[in-house]
């Protein structure tokens, strides 16, 4: 059974985000920093008359810091809106959800966000649960 996925790039890797998690796709320009917050919290941005918390997906996966990302996927978790920064966005495409192949091991943080794979022209793409990126590296590690 096909589901809709949004294909995005995080740290040079393609990922598939289930489209029911995606409220909209926006460009984030100005961000208000949140001092003392975890490193993956990029800050706050205004989206029309709403404030969203900007999440650096690269940092949330413990891969350093994303530099160039300004595109973001808006998702809602527990009544809070988050903008998850990604590097590039493709179209929304229907794919079949498949379980991870046996024996494939991901790193601990990827493990916490991965929900399976989809296959695009033979290339496997990890399904990433956008909501799972939000707690950030420290909480996942704990």
């Amino acid at each position, binding site marked *: 059974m096909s589901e809709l996925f949004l294909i995005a790039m995080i740290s040079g890797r393609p990922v598939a985000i289930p489209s029911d998690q995606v409220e909209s796709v926006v460009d984030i320009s100005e961000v*208000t920093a*949140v001092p003392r917050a*975890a490193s993956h919290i990029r800050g706050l941005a205004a989206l029309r008359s709403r404030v969203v918390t900007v999440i650096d997906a690269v940092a949330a996966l413990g891969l350093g810091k994303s530099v160039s990302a300004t595109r973001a996927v808006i998702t809602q978790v527990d009544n809070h809106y988050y903008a998850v920064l990604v590097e590039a966005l493709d179209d929304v495409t229907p794919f079949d959800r498949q379980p991870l192949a046996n024996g494939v091991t991901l790193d601990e943080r990827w493990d916490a966000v991965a929900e399976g794979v989809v296959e695009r022209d033979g290339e496997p793409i990890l399904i990433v649960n956008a909501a799972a990126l939000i707690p950030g590296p420290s909480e996942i590690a704990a």
Partner: protein
Amino acid sequence: MDDLLQEFIAETRETLETLAGEIVAWEAAPGDRARLDAIFRFVHTVKGSCGFLDLPRLERLSHAAEDVLAQVRDGARVPDPALVNAVLAIVDRIGEIVEAIDAGNALPDSGEELLIAALEEGAEAVVQTTAPATRTTSRSVRLNVELLDRMMSGMSDMVLARNELARRLREDDIDPQVEAALERMSASVADMRETVTRTRMQKLDTLFSVLPRVVRDTAAGVGKQVKLSVEGADVELDREMIEAMRDPLVHIIRNAIDHGIETPDDRRRAGKPENGRLTVAARQSGNQIVIEIVDDGRGIDVAKVIRKLAGNTGRDEQELRSLSDRAKLGLIFEPGLSTKDEVTNISGRGVGMDVVRSSIDQIGGRIELDNAPGKGLRIAIHVPLTLSIISAVVVGIGEQRFAIPRQAVEEIVSERAGNVRVDVLGKGSVATVRDRKLAMVDLGELLGVPSARNDHCAMLVIVSTGTGSFCLAVDSVIDNEELVIKPAAPSVMATGVYGGQTLPDTGMPMLVLDCAGVASTAGLRFGLGDMFADEEEEEAEAAASQGLAALMVADLDGAHRAVPLAVVDRIEKVGADAIRYSAGRLRIAIDGEILPVAALGDIGDRTEIALLRLHSGDSEVAYAVAEAMDIVTITEDVVPAPEYGPVAGAVLLNDEHIELIDANWMFDTHAECADADQATAPTCLLASNRDGWMRTFVRPLLEQAGYRVVNTLKEGERAAIVLTEDDSPGSVTDGASVIRLRDSRTGSADGSVFRYDRKELLSAIAARISGDAA
């Protein structure tokens, strides 16, 4: 109570309106069970409310009707037309009385006995009298809270839209007419917003009014006596919040009485008044409401909690023990905990503090505990005013702006203002604003935001957190703005320093600071403070006697010395050349006056020294030291110096020997207006000083009363009175009267005096001295 009455009237009136149809239907078909139940519920509710509101007439009527209807429900009576008529007559009468109460009219109670009598089996049917319509026009409407919610969130969006409009208009040159229209809209939006906010607010009184009864019943159930005082009942809070707080609050209070407050016997033994005290106080603090429940019971026995938790849940006791104090205290919120060994009918029914915490969490609140074992427990529930629109002060650090709720701001001063000075003490800074000393937190430093201050002076925002005030240093104070505060994402709130986020006119999101969070993140401790503001003085003294606050200095001779903080008025840096030897002693000219200078060493070739301005009532001495270092608390015993001199004794502080300066000697020797009577005043010898208490508290007390007080006797000197805390005062007494101070309130048989009883101490000394003279 008035609120409750109004609510009762509104509710009864509304039920009566819907019931009108039911009554007619019941009359037509007396066997209809659903109709009967509806009427039964009505009289039952009225009966319940009346008992609470003390409305005996309504209670009598509804009680009688309920009895009869219960019989009908049980099948003991058949609802014949006479009975139906009698019940309806009573329902009508209830309606009349309610209207009369609302209108403030008196309604003669004649005929009510007849109405009740008519309910009896086989009674004469009552004649239905249609009462003249005395009904006042209803001025209230009952609304669904959801509707109010929608109104409120619509209002917030409206404010945000207005802000955005204002911002966009400002980008271009704006037509004055458009500006005027915008102004008018802003004003009416502000008006509207205030009204809408009020619709959701309710006084905490509705929550607090049931507490006296809860406390009375709970205390009676466990054989304890508890005095309840309630403060802040007129603080307003969102209706839904009030409802959500009801159960947790009652639970905490029951816990406090059942677990916290001891039995009268135990309290007597612990030297506490037999009546336990319980204070429930509410106040608004920034964009939060804080409800504090303070009892003076035994506090939380952390060791017992750990044992219990390990026993009940099988968790590792060792591991629990190694937690931080704060985490240990937090264990009371763990599920599966009841520190009471036997289950009482009050608490211990499987509903624990874990449930309390989760209900508070649900409304976005948090609970703070302040445990003083043996002395009491303070539980503070912080709940947010969600969706609230608050007035805030916008401050700037470097490029970034932050909002501080206006209510938390006491005052804003410039660092360079005349009556403001900032001193660095140890790692921290202290700001003295007029005579007030406040801990200072550099916001930029705390948040790690680079400051753009350079040479500009900082602005100091004095904020109060409820438990204490402190000073926030910021680069600039930008504006005063009305802001819609929304809760920030959990990962933002986790930093502990923010209270929410907002979108101001600039279009850039802004964080709202939670001042209490800032204080605790910066490590400021305000202590239990005024837990019982109106508590007897002794409480405060007992707390203070646990340590002596002192200022550590590096003296001119290189030694580290401590000066009791109580006498230090302020610290100033002065050029060494300002100190001159004139008129027989060292003096300094400062602020247009000449002060005597005390120095325990040579100034040498220093160009700058720190000057401690010591104050004692009317005399002032400047004590010259090399540097002021830190504020310390001396809890160790002070080993007294062998003779009366600049140093009162030695004390161990962090494995270092520190000399404690004798402030009295400083004033005795250096102050210009030394008391001439001192020589002839009777001498009191403080023969022991277990914890600094004698010197800090007894000494000023005695000196004020005109005695000369010494810690040791000089050669040939004789003390008139010797005060001691020990059983054996030693050999120094030399025939003088000895007064022993005891720690407990009881035990006056041996002639000792309770150490906190100032009056008795003074009268005992006076009695001994006059006895000596005779």
